[in-house]
């Protein structure tokens, strides 16, 4: 087996998809010759040719819009947006067209596209190079929103996303693109797009997170374990549709829950999860559901970034509040 970084796993997964299905086409700004700003598509143009790995002009809106047309014609386009902050012109296409094509045509046309974008902070970059606006997509029926938290999951989830018959927004936590390496086989094995992953089993509290924040969340679980608290940690991975069964089953067991995300707290995906626990799991709760998120402000530059990003300490103290609640 070989060790892969998360960005390496994305590359491997894209290569596998290009190999197994000739309708897969990648395009985006600087993804060919340059191999992408984060090198996610490094070497792919050499292996699969300029007809399948295309450098495009700067035109995010058309990248997404064109993908809808291509997908309706039976292709599986995988456009890349360089940073999530540049995705907004594509948002219009994803909401107005990609997400509704199946419904609008009563299933006669479908939209098997995957819109990929690196997202999140922690790389000392300004606002639109650092923000997490996954909730905007998670709000839209007809889209899948998927965020991997590890190299193996990036590989498997991306493969499944490309094979999926519907549009997927695939957000890659760039802070951990190269932070960890994982051993796994390039075996073409996909991963489910309709369930959360129980990352660590526990009985005392449920910690729910996704993307890069899984690392702070697991570190918090480690700290809690030192004091005898056994936290169950869930990686949501697919934010829409949301696998509430797994989360509710966990909360039923632990009675306490803290949701951790990097995105601005208000109206974030954490609010949806908390509301659903309130609706369907109220009687198992022993404490209010806690949320740890980014603050309600615009992502600041480098020197204040550390204060914005949810830290392990903030997760631990939210967990303590939930544990100590009487």
């Amino acid at each position, binding site marked *: 087996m070989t060790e892969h970084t998360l960005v390496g796993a994305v590359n491997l997964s894209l290569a596998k998809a290009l190999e197994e299905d000739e309708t897969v086409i990648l395009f985006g700004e600087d993804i060919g010759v*340059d191999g992408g700003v984060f090198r996610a598509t490094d070497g792919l143009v050499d292996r699969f040719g300029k007809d399948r790995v295309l450098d495009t002009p*700067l035109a995010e809106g058309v990248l997404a819009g064109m993908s809808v047309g291509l997908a309706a014609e039976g292709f599986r386009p995988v456009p890349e947006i360089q940073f999530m902050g540049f995705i907004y012109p594509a948002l219009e296409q994803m909401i107005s067209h990609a997400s509704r094509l199946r419904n609008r045509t009563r299933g006669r046309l479908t939209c098997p596209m995957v819109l990929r974008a690196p997202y999140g902070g922690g790389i000392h970059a300004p606002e639109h190079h650092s923000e997490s606006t996954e909730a905007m997509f998670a709000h839209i029926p007809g889209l899948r929103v998927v965020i991997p938290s590890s190299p193996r999951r990036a590989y498997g989830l991306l493969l499944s996303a490309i094979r999926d018959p519907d549009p997927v927004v695939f957000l890659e936590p760039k802070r951990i693109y190269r932070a960890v390496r994982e051993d796994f086989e390039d075996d073409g094995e996909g991963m489910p797009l309709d369930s959360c992953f129980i990352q660590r089993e526990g009985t005392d509290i449920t910690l729910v997170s996704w993307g890069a924040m899984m690392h702070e969340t697991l570190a918090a679980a480690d700290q809690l374990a030192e004091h005898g608290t056994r936290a169950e940690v869930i990686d949501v991975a697919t934010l829409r549709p949301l696998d509430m069964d797994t989360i509710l089953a966990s909360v039923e067991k632990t009675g306490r829950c803290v949701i951790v995300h990097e995105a601005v707290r208000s109206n974030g995906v954490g609010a949806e999860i908390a509301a659903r626990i309130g609706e369907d799991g109220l009687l198992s709760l022993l404490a209010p559901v806690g949320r740890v998120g980014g603050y309600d402000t615009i992502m600041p530059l480098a020197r*204040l970034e550390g*204060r914005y990003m949810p830290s392990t300490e903030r997760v631990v103290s939210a967990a303590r509040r939930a544990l100590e609640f009487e």
Partner: protein
Amino acid sequence: MTSKSAASEPGTSKPAPAKRKAGVSAPPKTGATPEELLEYFRAMLLIRRFEEKAGQMYGMGLIGGFCHLYIGQEAVVTGVQAALGENDAIITTYRDHGHMLASGMDPRGVMAELTGRRDGYSRGKGGSMHMFARERNFYGGHGIVGASASLGTGIAFANRYRGNDQVCVTYFGDGAANQGQVFESFNMAALWSLPVVYIIENNQYAMGTAVTRSTAQTKLYKRGEAFGIPGQQTDGMDVVAVRDAARKAIGHCRKKKGPYVLEVLTYRYRGHSMSDPAKYRTREEVNKVRSERDPIDHVRELLIAGGTADEAALKEIDREVKALVTEAADFGQQSPEPDPAELYTDVLMTL
């Protein structure tokens, strides 16, 4: 004739002597006075030295985030600035340090913003791409490629509405020229006769993508044709040519004849930002431009050939400029970190 290169960057060999012909006996003809040439020389050198310093400081980890250097393109903003009226507005992209210095913003404040400190133009919250100075009519620094086009169109709309004769100079790159909002802006600006000069800084590349690989009509000054907007192309390595073309363009707008597209052919010497795989062009290509078409060398030659200044006088200017830059760099490192309370300032007004 030999000339010392102004483009001495660490780790690179000195460019060969400039090939551009300058008269030996009679001073070369330009439309600029000796004083003006000296002024442009100093202004361009300030940008270059500032950018060299910023590049070094980035390498030392003193500047966070991204940093897009303007080295090679100095004649563009310097020439345009010389053609601007006092109240004309400027708006540009993230490759903005040169524009800020040219518009008279304090190098110390710019550097302190690059280092993310309290005394920066955005109090350390904006960084390299996001600085503003209303007192200089400088409306930013914008990280979204193509954004300046529609925002600049709006500024021009305001000027037209108020009936004043101010013009908005709106810069963007060759890559940005392919964004939809640029075309939408062109149409409205032409429809409503807005006083906006769209300056397309065509440095041949958008990141790693050459114009020819991304653009169907590579003569970007023709981009306004479909909307009836006049366009012109000019040599962006020649500050006087830029100034004269900008005068014409700005004059057109000031006479309320509507928008204008000015394509300026230029070249960036450094990578797109500080990390650049540099796979898209050869070292020779870069060196050739640097040695044959450098905008600062060009003016240096004119000054010397015209007898306006000798090597020693130009060295002295360089020393003064370097001192300014060193002061800015020190300032940028000594200014305090932003107050954590700044996280919450200027999001919405508290009612």
